[in-house]
């Protein structure tokens, strides 16, 4: 591991807000979670708190919020130790946005929940309601003020949770994975809201592109210690350091030119005709209504062939999850649904699980056994596999997902990435004909994402990917189905989809800020110094005896020097073009007399 350092070349701020000195924290089971933390946070700073899963980010934030007390050391807020009465008062000025908005929305209605903080700040009911309505207006939820939180969509819940904090007018906001599981449109809304916030911001996220857009300082945690404290630009430009901390997201920046060429804009009719021979799934004029009568899916018509790699995209609430539930046989709609050429009737519907496997968005929903081995065995027992066969398959899939030796581990105690791979292993062990992945990258750190990508890239199965992650869609699939308001509006090759900006804006899949940031980061990662002999042209003042004049004299010569240049490409050989002309300072020539 490289040496930790705290190289801070960031703007100087006047007022210190937080300070931690020799901070240590141990969990009740004596595990050391934070070790020798020393940090100063000034008013107005925007800090990205990054590190692998389990590096201590959330624990540090809880310390700074006063939700946990240090085992030793001290935390200061506004130059006073964060304890006692000062802690009680400070909490009302420190906002903390939790990863799961359901943890934070405990009110009966949005208004009541949003007014909770202001009421605790001592505001009267009228004033608190006023502050709450104001905050709800800022997050565009004023029209849902009296709605119960459980009736909101995930994106709305996230914004409602933020409104609860904004209503308190906090000096500082702590954000834990603010954009996790949001579709791009909701993500953009959230980003705009946070950019508008004028106070101090400390954000935990694995999404470094989002952090690059939002923050200017980066603190890297590793095994409970601060390993780096520098600017955001420095963080993203240092690939080696990112890789050391499992944060290297550079694989996302590689421009993949191997996307299949656009053949036709819409595959709908043509694909149906071509694939009759090896079609695995076919929906014909399928629709589904929720028990309350809402039409969730209508006019669903699509086909999946064997060994095809397909993605389904669409905004939150477009009907993707409902379609998957129908595909899995959990829900039954009206219309024709064929699997492997057979019309799926109630009897076949109950047996679909033997052919279709799905990795859920939150893999905790499908892990409930006390050990990894039992978890994988669960499906195999239902399939009727013998003990020998089960043992063999467990070994195979654990090797496939790089989890050899994990058999006796408790799934609940695994990291997010490990759990995701375990969920994948459970499904793969059952040899499904169709593998469905619902938001596979949700909650994963970059290292986990990269590993998952490499595993999925090598899988030889029919794949249906549901995701907002355009990078994964581009890397793993060749065809995209676009859903909007319960209907399939496009079925097209991936290249055509990526080129179609109209679909991006329609479905909230536009990642304009991401594209811009990615491009900047890519350039930053390739800016570095070189020393080499080269030919160059330069201009200098002329001195003749007592006369100095500035007739510009141009000449070319060979010499070595430093310069910074940028070039595209990912660890590719590149030409430094020694004969190139550069504009640069040339101090050693200033004293030369040329006569």
């Amino acid at each position: 591991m490289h040496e930790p350092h705290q190289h801070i070349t960031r703007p100087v701020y006047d007022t210190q807000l937080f300070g931690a000195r020799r901070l240590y924290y141990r969990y009740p089971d004596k595990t050391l979670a934070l070790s020798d933390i020393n940090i100063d946070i000034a008013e107005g700073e925007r800090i990205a708190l990054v590190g692998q899963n389990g590096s201590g980010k959330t624990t540090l934030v809880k310390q700074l919020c006063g939700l946990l007390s240090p085992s030793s050391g001290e935390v200061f807020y506004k130059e006073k130790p964060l304890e006692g009465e000062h802690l009680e008062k400070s909490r009302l000025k420190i906002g903390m946005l939790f990863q799961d908005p359901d943890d934070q929305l405990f009110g009966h209605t949005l208004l009541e929940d949003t007014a909770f903080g202001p009421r605790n700040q001592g505001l009267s009911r009228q004033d608190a309601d006023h502050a709450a309505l104001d905050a709800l207006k800022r997050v565009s939820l004023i029209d849902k003020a009296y709605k119960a939180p459980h009736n909101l969509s995930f994106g709305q819940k996230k914004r409602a949770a933020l409104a609860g904090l904004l209503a308190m007018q906090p000096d500082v906001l702590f954000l834990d994975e603010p954009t996790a599981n949001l579709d791009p449109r909701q993500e953009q809304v959230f980003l705009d809201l946070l950019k508008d916030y004028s106070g101090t911001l400390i954000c935990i996220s694995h999404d470094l592109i989002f952090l690059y857009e939002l923050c200017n300082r980066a603190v890297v945690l590793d095994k409970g210690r601060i390993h780096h404290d520098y600017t955001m630009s420095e963080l993203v430009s240092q690939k080696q350091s990112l890789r050391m901390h499992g944060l290297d997201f550079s694989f996302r920046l590689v421009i993949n030119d191997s996307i299949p060429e656009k053949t036709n804009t819409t595959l709908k009719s043509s694909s149906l005709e071509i694939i009759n021979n090896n079609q695995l799934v076919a929906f014909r004029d399928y629709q589904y209504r929720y028990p309350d009568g809402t039409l969730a899916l209508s006019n669903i018509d699509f086909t999946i062939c064997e060994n095809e790699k397909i993605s389904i995209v669409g905004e939150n609430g477009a009907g993707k999850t409902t379609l998957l539930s129908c595909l899995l046989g959990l829900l039954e709609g009206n219309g024709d649904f064929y699997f492997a050429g057979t019309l799926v009737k109630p009897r076949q519907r109950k047996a679909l699980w033997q052919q279709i496997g799905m990795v859920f968005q939150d893999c905790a929903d499908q892990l409930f056994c006390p050990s990894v081995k039992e978890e994988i065995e669960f499906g195999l027992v239902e399939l009727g596999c013998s003990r020998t066969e089960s043992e063999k398959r467990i070994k195979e899939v654990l090797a496939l997902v790089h989890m050899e030796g994990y058999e006796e581990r408790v799934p609940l105690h695994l990291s997010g990435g490990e759990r995701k791979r375990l969920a994948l292993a459970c499904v793969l062990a059952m040899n499904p004909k169709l593998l469905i992945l619902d938001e596979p990258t949700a909650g994963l750190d970059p290292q986990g994402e990269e590993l998952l990508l490499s595993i999925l890239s090598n899988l030889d199965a029919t794949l249906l990917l549901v995701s907002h992650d355009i990078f994964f869609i581009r890397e793993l699939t060749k065809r995209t189905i676009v859903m909007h308001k319960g209907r399939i509006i496009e079925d097209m090759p991936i290249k055509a989809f990526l080129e179609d900006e109209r679909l991006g804006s329609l479905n909230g899949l536009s990642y304009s800020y991401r594209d811009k940031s990615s491009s900047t980061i890519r350039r930053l990662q390739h800016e570095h110094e070189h020393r080499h002999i080269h030919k160059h042209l330069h201009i200098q003042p002329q001195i003749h005896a007592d006369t100095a004049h500035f007739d510009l004299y141009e000449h070319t010569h060979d010499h070595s020097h430093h310069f910074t240049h940028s070039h595209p490409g990912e660890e590719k050989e590149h030409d430094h073009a020694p004969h190139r002309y550069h504009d640069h300072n040339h101090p050693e020539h200033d004293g030369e007399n040329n006569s």
Partner: protein
Amino acid sequence: MLDITNIKLPLWQLPVFVLIPLAVFALAVFFLKRFAYKRSIPTEERDWSVPPIADAIYDSVINRWDVRCKIVTILAFSFAIASLKHLTPALFAIGISSLVLLISRTSFTKALLRLLAIAGFISMFLIVMPFSVPVHSNDTVIIFGKMNWLVFNLRGLLLAATIAAKAVAITLLMEPLLSTAPLPVTLHGLSKLGVPEMAGQMVLLSYRYLHVFRHEARRMSSGMQVRGFRKHTNIQTLRAVANFLGMLLVRSFERTERVFDAMRARGYKGRFPEPAELHLKTSDLLITALWLAAGSALIIFDRIICQG
């Protein structure tokens, strides 16, 4: 020697007395459920920028009534109904409850759904009691064919009908009690009446998080189903269900800790802010007195007039 009136009917009439009414009742419940369920689905999204209970349509005497008086009165009246012994006053009680339902302008459909929820319980009484009450003097019993061991006691039917009427009357009052004020205000009223504040907070949070846990349980159940889990009567099913419940408990416990952290982070120190200021007016007391008088009148009618 017991003085019992026996009515002998042919055996084929047993289904007429039991099965046909049961089938009619089941059909009625089925169709009413469908009707109520369809009616309960909002045809269009309501305006959530205004409080539902503040809508003009909900502005009734019961809405404006002090929540403490409302709780005390309705609970006392419910106990009065529960103490009735005769069918006629129980039917009067249904009349009063219906009148309150009408005055409170609460949803008739929701009240119907509540009634349908207790339909099974009521039907069991109506079927079982006529055949199971002990035969007393002056009872009238129906004997089908030669089945002397299975007598249909009309006193039992009357008793079951009385219980059913009382249950209906009390159930009809639940809408005016619970839907004429937001839940936090009702719980605030309870705490003002001496119920520990913590109990109210727990009910409020339970109400909010029951939905979350239900969704979690449903997702986990789907996770098991897509891996082939089907319930059987074997040890494997028992183990899987135990694991499922254990995991649900662990997740719920972890969530409660996170919710508590979130509450503390927003200044919670053991007390929720008061959702409303309660002011007792003379009119509140007057309504309480009138209603309790009606309850007393029912008891007098039941105990003195009907008994006599």
